């Protein structure tokens, strides 16, 4: 069976960009998390997420017929125009609030784990291999986020902070779970066993169980105004985030660091 290359490239980029920017967001918390063990956990989880992004960008290189050198990976990670990225708003979102950072970690890893599980039996073998490796790491990420959230929920004040964090992130959950227009072809070709949006009922149940927050009925149909839940549109936080990541690279575009 031939691969739907165009759809597959978009699908890989959407996942890679999410992993890349989520890993990037974790790097901002190292050294300033509430305690040392958390600094360590975020450094480790951040490395894993960036590693997943590298695996996925490598597959894009393969589709493009390019050797996955550091330069080729970096061209995909840092060198595209804003409209060529396929990240969702949740991973672009800038926050200095630890409750929001933790709530995002919990939501993202809950969904990420399911996204990888949809790929474990992929008809595209390199992706199935990547999924097996990533899923192993993801179970640790989820356990970490769960343990922290569960511990904090025992305290009424912390519970309030987490509920407020969820409220501010709520409009971004739809964009994380929305299936891109390319996913129909991906599922059809057996590359993924289900579209990303298939996670929604399970995620809604988990959020209600943990936080007592009901996701509004039909919330997926009410797109976030900044991005329209469409991975082809960037949020207001994307440009400063990219400028920060590119600060050293932009000093000399011919340099290899």
């Amino acid at each position, binding site marked *: 069976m031939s691969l739907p290359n165009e759809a597959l490239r978009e699908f890989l980029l959407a996942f890679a960009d999410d992993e*890349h920017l989520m890993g*990037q967001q974790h*790097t*901002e918390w*190292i*050294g*300033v*998390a*509430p*305690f*040392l*063990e958390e*600094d*360590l956990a975020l*450094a*480790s989880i*951040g*490395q894993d997420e*960036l*590693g997943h*992004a*590298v695996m996925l*960008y490598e597959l894009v290189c393969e589709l493009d017929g390019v050797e996955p050198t*550091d330069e080729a*990976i*970096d061209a995909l*990670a*840092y060198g595209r125009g804003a409209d060529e990225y396929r990240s969702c708003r949740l991973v672009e979102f800038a926050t200095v609030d*630890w*409750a929001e950072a*933790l709530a995002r970690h919990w939501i993202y890893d809950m969904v990420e784990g399911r996204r990888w599980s949809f790929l474990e039996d992929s008809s595209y073998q390199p992706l199935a291999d990547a999924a097996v490796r990533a899923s192993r790491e993801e179970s640790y990420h989820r356990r970490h986020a769960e343990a*922290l959230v569960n*511990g*904090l929920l*025992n*305290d009424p*004040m*912390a519970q309030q*902070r987490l509920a407020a964090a969820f409220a501010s992130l709520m409009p971004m959950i739809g964009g994380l779970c929305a299936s891109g227009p390319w996913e129909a072809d991906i599922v059809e070709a057996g590359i993924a066993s289900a579209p990303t949006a298939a996670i929604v009922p399970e995620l809604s149940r988990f959020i209600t169980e943990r936080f007592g927050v009901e996701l509004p009925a039909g919330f997926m149909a009410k797109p976030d105004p900044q991005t329209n839940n469409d991975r082809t549109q960037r949020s207001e936080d994307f440009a400063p985030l990219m400028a*920060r*990541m590119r*600060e*050293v*690279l932009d*000093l*000399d575009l*011919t*340099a*290899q*660091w």
Partner: protein
Amino acid sequence: MAREWKDLAEFEAFLDDGGIVEVDDDMPDEYRNAVFTFIEMHANSEYMGGLTERDWIPKTPGLRHKMSVLAKTQDEIGHGHLLYMVAADMGVKTRTEMLEDLMAGKSRFHNVFHYKAETWGDQVAIAFLVDAAALASQQAVFKNCSYGPYRRILKRIISEEGFHMRLGEDRMMRIAQGTDTQKEIFQGALDRWFWPALQLFGPDSKPNDVLLKWHIKSERNEVLRDKWVQKFVPMLQSYGFTVPAPDLTYDEETKKWDVGPIDWEPLKKTLAQGGPDSARRIGEARSNWERTAWARQALEASTS
């Protein structure tokens, strides 16, 4: 089983004989306090070093490169974590008390982390020059350290610091073979970090240095500093960089480099928390610590 010594003289004879002290031993208070303060400063330095580097982690040029930089910082903070445990076990202060003293500017950390990493070149210079200086000091402690728990932790720290130094060296070599912009940036970093890295070893050891007497340190400061100079001056020059020491000379007879007189005033200022970036570094650490206090309090309440 806890051991006891009838007086300081007997304890010192035990140390001179190669004796290793363990946490449960009834060690003299002078020794306990000296070792504790030394380990606390080491722990604080690992932690503050991580904070100095974190300013640049999100800007690391390259995705795979960023993964290795993250791994390095994870190691540094992990060293702090282990060292705080070893220090806390001595029963002088808890980890929270040590961190609160650090945030309040009441306890010390190495001079180099009172400076700001101004450019990406500074990040590379820290990994190369500063990590090498720290590694040399730690190796000298490990060689003959009389406090067992510290010595065992140092073994792991030293093996990881070796990787960091090689990472710094690899990145410095790339820059040395790179563009004019890269070389200019690294030379600027070298101008800022050469002297603080050299001063990390401290002034010449005093004749009555208890850390030497009690076999915590095994080498005098000036010996370690000189080894560092003999290694790094020719290495930096061979890569085409200028060592920022106007009085630098080379003695053909002894085959040794001499950097000239060392101004110890900058080091003294850092010891009094008055370095160029001390106020910002400590202030930011404290405000981050305060901003996340709710999470620590909630978790403590839920586990107590």
